[in-house]
């Protein structure tokens, strides 16, 4: 097995060399990608027909938006604190359970229940930032990473203690019965899936507006690019970072509520998504919300299409392939597709 791994990496490297040469011309590379994708689609449609291609496309997009939703929350934390929050999935899971208790056990209307859970999660996230993160020097990532790992272990086990491990169905505001679909290009597109696409898209638009048009959002962007200069222009840095954590927790809970409908709700459900969301966020560039969405879609589509159409890869190596693609992209663009370059000074 080690040799196989090395093969994989070495192909990665040689591919990177090829791509590197092309990198100079931005348009050439996008055109190249476009051609490759078009050829692949043509091949796929010719071999297995329209219906299967579009079914897979919808599968891939749905998983892609699922990964994206969580990746957005990761990006918000990265922008605020410069770490990967390992507890992001656990916090989202907890929030989703809160929503579940409100909606299913207390009879609160679905959307209202999700909103209340988001608000509670935001409080929780702000509290974590204030109590556990702020005491540490923000440039020292390792202790903060260990804190998030501690939260990750603790929160998951805590949820297991309270709710045990049976899967539960999470209500969706969209119709989700067996016949709730319409056909588009010969393939079934289900309303609950379309709902996920729309909700994640909406989330992206609202977040972008929030960060670009509101005072708090502008302060957040300023702090995430430079703490020092933000402090100089009079921004309350602590409060702003707290805002980032609160926002990430709320977004995570919304993501959890959307995801739980297809993956089912149990204390570990977000952890199965988290790896792919890490990959998605990294691919897009850890500090770009738009990148997180694009990254999620690419990871999921590669997984679905490569696993579906390329026999050598199959279901067994689909996820591995998706991860390999990330390595290739990162070698070419070390800060992801849309990440900003950090300039270092001696």
């Amino acid at each position, binding site marked *: 097995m080690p040799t196989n791994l090395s093969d994989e990496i070495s192909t990665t490297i040689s591919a990177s060399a090829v791509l590197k040469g092309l990198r100079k011309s931005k348009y050439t590379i996008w055109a190249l990608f476009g051609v490759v994708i078009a050829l692949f689609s043509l091949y796929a449609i010719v071999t297995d027909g329209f219906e299967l291609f579009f*079914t897979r496309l919808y599968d891939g997009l749905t*998983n892609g938006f699922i990964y994206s939703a969580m990746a957005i929350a990761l990006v918000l934390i990265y922008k605020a604190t410069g770490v990967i929050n*390992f507890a992001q999935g656990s916090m989202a899971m907890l929030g989703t359970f809160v929503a579940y208790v409100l909606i299913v056990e207390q009879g609160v209307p679905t959307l209202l229940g999700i909103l209340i859970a988001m608000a509670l999660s935001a409080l929780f996230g702000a509290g974590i930032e204030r109590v556990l993160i702020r005491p540490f020097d923000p440039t020292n990532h390792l202790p903060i990473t260990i804190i998030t790992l501690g939260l990750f272990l603790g929160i998951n086990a805590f949820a297991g203690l309270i709710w045990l491990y049976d899967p539960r169905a999470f209500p*969706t505001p969209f119709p989700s*019965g067996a016949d709730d679909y319409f056909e588009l290009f010969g393939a079934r597109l289900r309303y609950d899936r379309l709902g996920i696409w729309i909700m994640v898209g909406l989330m992206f638009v609202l977040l972008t507006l929030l960060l670009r048009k509101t005072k708090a959002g502008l302060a957040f962007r300023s702090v995430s690019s430079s703490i020092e200069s933000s402090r100089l222009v009079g921004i309350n840095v602590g409060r702003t970072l707290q805002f980032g954590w609160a926002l990430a927790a709320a977004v995570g809970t919304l993501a959890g509520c959307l995801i739980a*409908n*297809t993956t089912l709700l149990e204390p570990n459900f977000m952890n199965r998504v988290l*790896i792919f969301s890490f990959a998605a966020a990294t691919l897009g560039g850890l500090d770009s919300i738009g990148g997180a969405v694009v990254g999620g879609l690419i990871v999921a589509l590669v997984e679905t299409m490569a696993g579906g159409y390329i026999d050598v890869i199959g*279901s067994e190596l689909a996820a591995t392939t998706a991860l390999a693609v990330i390595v290739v992209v990162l070698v070419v663009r070390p800060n992801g597709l849309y990440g900003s370059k950090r300039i270092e000074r001696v």
Partner: protein
Amino acid sequence: MRRTTVIKASGLIVTLGIIGAACGGSSDSGSKATTTTAKPAGTTAAPGTTAAPAAKYGQDATNKNLYKGPGNFEIDLSKCPSDYNPAQGITATEINLFGSLPKSGPLAGFGLLADGMQSYFNYVNDNGGVGGAKIKFEAKDDKYDPKLTKTNATEAIQAKKYAAGVTILGTPNNLGIWDDMNKECMPELLNGTGAAQWGDVKAHPWTSGMQIDYFTEASLWIEWLKTKFPSGAKIAELTYNNDFGKSYAKGVKNAVKGTGFTVAGSQLHEATAPNVTNQITTLAATGADVLLIETTGVFCTQAMAEIEKGAWKPTVVMSATCGSLGQFFKPLIDQGLTGKGTNIIQTFKDVNDPAYVDDGFVKLFKETATKQGLDPKQSTYATGWIFAWYMNKILQDAAALNGGLNRANIMIAARSLQAKAGNSGADCYLPKGGADCAMPFLLNGLTGNMSGFDDAYLTEGGQMAEYTVTDPKALGSFKKVGELLNLEGKLKNYDTVIAAGNG
């Protein structure tokens, strides 16, 4: 994230659903069972019958180190360590047992099994115990890490206070310790995994399993499919990418040899997969007639949902580990789906199945669990009761053998379990119940026999049942759709599996 990887190990989800693997409407007497009536072993009696049965097996009259059981099974204590104490862990007041299973970590859900076992042992202890001795069960936490299981077992062996290990969960976990357990002559009973290795009587006489193994279960699927598709059909498989899933795949591969059945598509999924949508889409494209769901846990529910939502409508056969109505079918109702039409091999009765509300053991379980403050709807507790019931029976049987209750006789008793199924009153299952009581929870008509080398597997039968729903807003129930299939004794022991090239 740490969880995701560990979950992958969860091949064994197995036990969770075992009880659920059953249910089903009628207890019709018409079901044909090819029961092998093995020799009337030491005890056909239910636990702790006052009248001691003809104690034919047990300690040899001349060679005090030799213990004999049915099916040429023998235990020779002279092969054990020099300081071996057959009575270790057994006193007039206490019988000490240990177990090892995940109580924390991602698979902590299995820890409930130990709580279920404790619940039945408490019940036994409150009602006289084993000849007055109380069963003391210590379940250690191993987080499903084979290394920790090994540490737990080594500590238990060295503590020199346990009579036996029981319900150690997981295939790699048991494989990691079975050499040690056998070297130390420590009984390793009722392994919580369905690997065929636990029938390796020759090399590992002190190890014994309990669950129907996945290889056999897959053979039962094909047996049933033959009646539904006499001229053969195309099969698609959704397989968990671990030993658990692959055991099913091997069983299918072996069973379709020389039949009209072909495997048209096979898709693996990782434990880390958020869902199995991609796999189902690819399998649907094969247009197969049959879908075999060789996975467990939340993935079963996901797969059923995908099939119900999609255009592809194959005959669905699913792992018995996903048979629990409350765990795996109920979430579908909340999604506006049902899961109807799914077929499952049943071996045990589901405590949540309305058809069994009057069953003696189901009643007893529910009453006792409620009294002890456990949720009777949690079928993992019921699974724990099955394990504990067998353990109690082994102890009660061993006490009646020549030489009385000791560790060698515990092993002899475990290798000579005899139980038929049938409905019985709750009083049957008092530890000192009547002599003609049947094995609890076991599907009517099935047997749970062991006989040394001749039969090293407890249950090898089941009946195909289809999940049917009348009210889409409520849980349905399983309706029997096939004959009772019983391969009891056919597999004999692990040598047969090796000979079939599927070891």
